[in-house]
Every structure is written in C-alpha cells, then in structure tokens.
C-alpha cells in the first residue's frame, strides 16, 4: 500500500487561477520519487498542497497519507503526522544559530547521527544561520527536517541556487539518507540530470497536469525528456523546434 496517494487534486488561486488540474501520484515506502517540470508547471503548488500550506486547498480530490485523508488539514498537523516539507527557499531562520534551528524541530545533543550525514553543520553549531553558505543552509534545512525521522520528506527544489558540485554532493547525501535511514522522499525539481540519477520513479508535470510518468530508466530513455530536461540536442526538424518552443509540449 502506498504511503502517500494524491488523487486527482485541483488547486485554485483567487478562485480563478487553476494551477493544479487533476494531479495524481503515489509513493511507496522507502522510495525516492521525483516530479520534474519547467517553471510555472505547478510543482511547488503541488508540494504545498500536499503539506497543507495553501489554506482550503486542494479544492477537489483527496490526499491520503498512511491511509488517512490529509487534504485541507493544517500544516502543523500534517507535519506532526510525519510528512515534512523542506520549502523552496529553504526556510532557514536566519537570525537563529544552527543549533537553535535544529532545536526547533526537537533536536537534542544525543542526536549526533545527523552530523554523520552533514558533518559541516557540527563545526558551525553556534554560528548564525545567515552566515552559512547556500549549500550549508540547504543542508541545515534538510537536517532540521529529518531530525523527527519523518515518514515522508518532500523537498522543493533542493538544488536551487547551488553550484553543480554542491548539487551533486547534496543528492549523494539524499541517496544515503534514503539507503541508511530508509527515508521516503518526494523531490520536486527542475534539475532532471541529478534527480533522475537517484530516483526510483519520476513524473513530469506541465501546465498543472502530469504528462508523463515512469521508472527512472524510462525517464532516462525517453527522447523528449532527454531533449527537454537532460540537455540532449533538440531535433533539428520543424516538429522538434515547435515542440521545444511551445509551452504545451506533451
């Protein structure tokens, strides 16, 4: 039985802007699944809708987490059930120290296992989070999220603003997290190259709809995904260019 089932949800902003138009997905225990898509596809809205961060949304459909409906529930209740989101802007509290950031999610001095995954943070426990580099802030945001040992971790654009080297390191750590702690993850990303490498299953989202889904290998082998998300060359045919230029590629 999947740990999370998103059933045909619709999220609407200001009563007229349909951002999610019947999105469905599911995640099994211990899996890493990735949602790919261009800017404005609705990926962040999907992550926020699942986490309860958009009031009274999704308007239609249902979200089942561990057999219980969590659609339209308050974010803090969903978080206490074990579904934790690392938001797009990392959400590090800039004026608090690294230790204070960690303590807010229930970290105690006994939880040294976090530093096996993120050794840099141990060196900077007393530093103000605002003084950390972008990569370290992302590490802190993830460390803070996994302290509670969540049943499902949703990461919204974890590679945002990171250099390719740091992105690779971060995704290696996420892979370790999945293998060693068996953390189930849903990664919402634009960086298909790194995310496809670590995921078990993937979705492609455009204009508020899931347009493609398949196992990691299916994603890697798909010609259009290769062209549009994995840096492959665009076919020099009239149809190829048309597909590339228009928003409705699928």
């Amino acid at each position, binding site marked *: 039985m999947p740990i999370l089932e998103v059933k045909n949800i619709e999220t609407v902003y200001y009563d007229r802007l349909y951002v999610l138009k019947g999105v469905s997905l599911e995640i099994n225990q211990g899996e890493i699944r990735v949602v790919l898509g261009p800017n404005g596809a609705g990926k962040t809205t999907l992550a926020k809708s699942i*986490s*309860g*961060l958009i009031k009274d949304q999704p308007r239609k459909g249902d979200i089942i987490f561990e057999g219980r409906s969590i659609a339209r529930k*308050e*974010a*803090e209740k969903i*978080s*206490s059930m074990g579904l*934790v*989101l*690392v*938001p797009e*802007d*990392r*959400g*590090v*509290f*800039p*004026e*608090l120290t690294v230790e*204070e950031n960690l*303590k*807010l*999610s229930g970290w105690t*001095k006994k939880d040294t296992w976090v530093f096996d995954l993120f050794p840099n943070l141990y060196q900077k426990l*007393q530093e103000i989070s605002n003084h950390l580099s972008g990569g370290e802030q992302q590490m802190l*945001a993830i460390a*803070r*999220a996994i302290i*509670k040992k969540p049943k499902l971790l949703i990461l919204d654009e974890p590679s945002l603003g990171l250099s390719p080297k740091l992105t690779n390191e971060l995704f290696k750590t996420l892979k370790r997290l999945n293998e060693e702690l068996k953390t189930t993850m849903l990664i919402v990303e634009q960086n298909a190259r790194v995310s496809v490498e670590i995921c078990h299953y993937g979705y492609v989202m455009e204009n508020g709809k899931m347009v493609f889904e398949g196992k990691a290998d299916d994603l890697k082998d798909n010609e259009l995904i290769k062209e549009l998300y994995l840096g492959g060359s665009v076919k020099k045919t009239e149809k190829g260019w048309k597909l590339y230029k228009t928003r409705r590629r699928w």
Partner: protein
Amino acid sequence: MIKKTVRMKTDYLDDYRLIADLPALVFFALVTVVFISIPFLFSELWLSVITHIALYSIAVLGQNLLIGYTGLISFGQAGFLAIGAYTFAHSVHILGFIPSIFISGLIASVFGVIVGFPSLRLKGPYLAIATLGFSVVVFQVLQNTPAISGGRMGLSVPSFGSKAEIFYLVLAFCYLFYIAGYKIVKSSIGKSFSAIRDSEVAAETLGINIVKMKLLSFAISSFYTGVAGALYAIYMKYLEPNMFFITESILMFSAIVIGGIGSVLGSILGSIFVIAVPQFFVGMKELVPIIFGIVIVLVVMFEPLGLYGRWIKIKLYFMNLPFR
C-alpha cells in the same frame, strides 16, 4: 597550545541561565546595588524620570516581544496601556495594589488576544493599521464614557507611598518582567516567535502552531503593557484619556527602533532615550519635539541596529583588544 577563548555551552540549561559565570554575577550584583541606591543619589526630579523610564521599559519590552521577536507590527499599545491603567484605578480599591497590578495585566492580555485575531490574516502595514484602530477605539471610549474615565475631572489613583517607594515597586516589577522576558526569548516559545517572524511557511512545516503562537505573543505583549499601565497609574496618581493618545504607541515603537528591534537590552536603552533625552532639552520648551525628532533621525541614520547595536560594537571592540 590552543587557548580556550570562548566558553562552550555544554548544557541546555546554559541557554536559560541569566547569570552564566562569576564576572556576570558580580556585574549583576553591582547593577542591583546601583539601582537600589538611586533614591539616595538623585534629586526628586531625576528619581521621577528614572521611575518613568523603568515602567516605560516594561511596556517597550512587551511591544518588542511582539514586533521584534514575532514580527507582528502593532500600534495598539496605547490602548493596552490605557486598559491596564484604568483597570488598576478601578480595581485597586477592592483588590489592593499588587493583585490589581496583575489583574490589569490579565485584562489587557484578554484584549490582546482579541486584537491578535486579525494578525492571523493580516501582516505588516495592514496589521499596524488594524491595531492602530484599536488604540483609537479605546481612546474614544474613554473620552466618551465618564463612568470609566472620570469625566472632565479625570480619575484619581490612591497614593502608593513616597517617590522612593514607588521607584522600588517599579524596580521590582522591572526586574521580574525583564528576567521573565529574557527567559521567554531563550525558551522554545521565544524561538518559535522568531521562527514565525523569519518564515511562517518553514515554521508551519516544523509543526509550530502559528495561530497559538501569534495569539500567545499578543497575550504576553499586552500583559506586559497592561502591567506597565497599572504602574503608570501609580506613578501619575491621576488618569485622563489624553495620556493614552495614539502618539504613545508611536513613541513606544520609536523606543524599540532606537533601542534595537528584537533585543531585551535594547528595550531599556530605547526607553532611556525616549524619556530622558527630552529632559535634557527641557529648557528649550517648544523646540523639544523638533530637537527630539532630529536626534531620532540621526540615531536611525547612523546606527540602524539601534543603541543595542552600538553596545555590541563597543563590547566587541574591548573583547578583541589588543588585536585592533
């Protein structure tokens, strides 16, 4: 050999400890001795000014907990101050001085929770305007309800004692509320306030109950202001609605900005500034507000972190000596 220059924290209790080591204890004891001897060192005029600063700093700390730590801009403090003062003036005959002071705080905090509800939907300037409206409402109610405000004659408050006794009473409350304030900001509640200020989304994803924490912040803040209002009533021995005009809220806000937003010590420094500085120019009569305004502009321009920021810079300068 590596010299240990920073005292490492080894226990969470360290975070809550007000007096961390022997030098801090000596400093704390010295400050207390100085405070206790103030009535013997200063004239009646300056004793009165210092009492005013002390009680004002309680209200400013309350507002700083709301604005500086939780990030909720409120101009409703004049209203809470008035509620505290008038509750005290009416209840002191029945309950006595000390219980009435706490009751004043409690009544103000009930109103604080009510005023806090808009904060669940409003932010920044919109919340500021909504809370400013509350101050206006309280002022108008007092102006037009002689049964509460005592009408044209105002409302007299029973005398607590001599100026020195009032000073010691205010000082005791100041100590109590500053220690409590320090503990609050160091506790998980205080950190949750800061988390809400910095990122509501991230705070929610960590399981922090935003509604509860915002209302709690309003309740604590208005409790502080209500108690300050009661002490103000004791200090003035007389109340009239004009003492609680909306400019009081703006002055308190100025004290926070000048002292240092989100700083316990800054609340005291800001209070000293807004109460004591006009005293230095008192001989210039109508020029006082102009000079005061210019001084505020200069402080904000040259020390954006407030007087607390200046204090930190001075402290760091001496800590780093001789490596400058």
